[in-house]
């Protein structure tokens, strides 16, 4: 039981990091990033490959953040000068390009077979101790990221981002360099996604391109939207709810319902879908929207 909860908690925290990163981009800045999974993948592969090459994990995780952030920078420079919806299309394209590269450049990424045997954090410990230690580190990292983002949100930088989100023209008229602000937001959000990816790689110890489909991006979007775009605590709550939906429905099978396996599988997705629809009907701006949007 404990080990299962820790496993779900660890995956939940990885999703929370992804959601916090996306919230900075979408919730604060209004950037429609439909390619979030690309930075997650870049982080996972960077850290995984470097760790397999024998680098110490704290370094690989840091490098993963930097590489994911750097990958977002040219994307931002290229697309953010365009009208904002173009980013959505470009980003989803970018994420598919990244996945294609991972699938085809087998010399680098292992191709579709993926990368097995990625070192874990705390490889000196075993079993439950290791999961607990990893979970504790993830929790500390998530809290740290959360606090940094909260501070950022309240800072002049955060205010500038929100002003761009709400009225780009007005922000430009006030002398803000809109493209620069947007690029920094995109880059920072991508670096956080890269951080999440690094932890994901070391947690699962196996990554393959099929784990980095657009579905991941949209799961994170669901977490952000049901939690409350723009609010960091809301986004954390949204992630929690998403994980409860995704995992809680597994226990349907143990309730002894008179359904066979394939019916249960389908029922799970129906319940998840219905719950999300209900959330949106009764809480259209999320469960914990930021104060300004209530």
């Amino acid at each position, binding site marked *: 039981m404990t080990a299962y909860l820790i496993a779900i908690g660890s995956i939940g925290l990885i999703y929370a990091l992804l959601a916090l990163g996306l919230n900075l981009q979408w919730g604060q800045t209004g950037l429609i990033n439909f390619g979030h999974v690309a930075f997650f993948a870049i982080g996972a592969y960077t850290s995984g490959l470097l760790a397999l090459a024998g680098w110490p994990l704290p370094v690989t995780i840091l490098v993963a953040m930097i590489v994911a952030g750097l990958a977002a920078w040219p994307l931002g420079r290229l697309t953010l000068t365009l009208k904002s919806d173009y980013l959505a299309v470009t980003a989803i394209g970018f994420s598919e390009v990244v996945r294609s590269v991972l699938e085809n450049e087998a010399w680098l990424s292992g*191709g579709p*077979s993926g990368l097995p045997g990625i070192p874990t954090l705390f490889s000196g410990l075993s079993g439950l101790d290791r999961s607990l230690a990893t979970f504790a580190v993830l929790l500390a990292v998530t809290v740290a990221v959360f606090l940094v983002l909260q501070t950022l949100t309240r800072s002049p930088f955060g205010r500038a981002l929100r002003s761009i989100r709400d009225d780009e023209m007005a922000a430009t008229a006030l002398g803000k360099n809109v493209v620069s602000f947007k690029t920094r937001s995109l880059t920072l959000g991508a670096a956080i996604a890269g951080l999440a990816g690094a932890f994901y790689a070391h947690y699962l*110890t196996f990554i393959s391109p099929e784990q980095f489909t657009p579905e991941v991006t949209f799961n994170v979007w669901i977490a952000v939207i049901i939690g409350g775009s723009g609010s960091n605590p809301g986004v954390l709550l949204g992630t929690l709810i998403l994980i409860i939906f995704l995992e809680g429905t597994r226990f349907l099978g143990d309730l002894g319902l008179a359904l066979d396996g394939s019916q249960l*599988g389908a029922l799970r997705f129906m319940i998840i879908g219905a719950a999300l629809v209900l959330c949106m009907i009764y809480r259209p701006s999320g469960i914990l929207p930021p104060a300004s949007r209530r």
Partner: protein
Amino acid sequence: MKLTRRRLLESGAAAGAFAMSSAAGIRLTVAQEAEEIRIGTLCPITRAGSVFGPGIQRGIQFAADDINAAGGLLGGRKIRLFNEDTQSDPDSAVRAAKKLIEINETETLLGTWSSGVTMAIAPIAIEGKVVNMNVSGTTDLRTMDKDEWIWPCGGSNIAYGKMMGEYAIAQGYKNASFLAFNNPSGITLGEEFKKVFVDAGGTCEVVVYNPNQPSYRAELTRALASGPEVIALGSYLPDTTILLKEWYAMGEPVDWVGPIWAVSPALIEAVGADAAEGIVSIGAVPNFDSPAFESFKERYESAMDQPILANPFAAIGYDMMITCALAMEAAGSSKAEEFRRQIRAVSSPPGEKVYTVAEALEAVRAGTEIDYEGVGGNMDFDETGEAKPYFAYWKAEGGTLNLKGPIES
């Protein structure tokens, strides 16, 4: 950031209701009879693997029913299955596996499909001291250090490539081309086909193509350039459909042979009877010779409303469960740590060949050395720890795919 109590209560309520129903589920499972043997099924019920998953799960269920009907194991202990869906996705499979191991306290995970899924859960199974039997074909599973925890039972890509090569040699072909989809499955099939074919004195060129193209004419032209008598395929249904249509339009005579997942009745339907005429399909078939096969076939076909040949993995699912049960009986323990050492002993030679659950259990209890022969395959694990199914070939004739006969290796 202001949080009213009311708002928090409202949002907490939904989450709470979920958590409570989950908790009830946990108590329910823990409160059941303690001496049940808990087995987890981890099949692809939804998405890509959903053509196989429900059938595999049903096969495992039949085996559990048969074992329970025969009086259970280890002095009357019944088998209880816990079913989870991998969603054909490694990430979901990992969480499902953790749930089966931690919450349902199973020490056996049966029925994983697709290489990514099995590769992702393998480290968890090994560390969690859990036996996994799967139908994944990746060659990584052959080479990894499995220490008798992980058992591939569905035939690897190497086995398929080899069988296609053996077929081509038996037909007397001397010059072949191989069109390989650019992924480990396609490339391994191609390499193995070429190896077998060239060793027998033939010549073979492997042409690798990238997925999701609207046309494969360039690759097809390359494959035909050496004037082959046969083109072998390491492919899937969508790309094979395009390849065959383009080839038919070109009008160059050549024979075709491909794996069953690409060359299936769906392919004939997609390209038409004329274009498909004569194409050969190589695939796993159940163990027709087993006395237990006919009754399994009837049960399966009436339960699943699908011919048994449409899902060769279903019968292998049955065999997985029986093999584990026999190993438990032989080891006198349902602990994975102990019974995994008996898996090879009860299912592979040497030993007296046994076919049905009842006779197999009786023989094990009498202390006889047995070699269980399944309804899906013979469950003989080779030195790499892999069991191969039986192979046969089909030929498209007048719009239907007819089973022609076995392929001997």
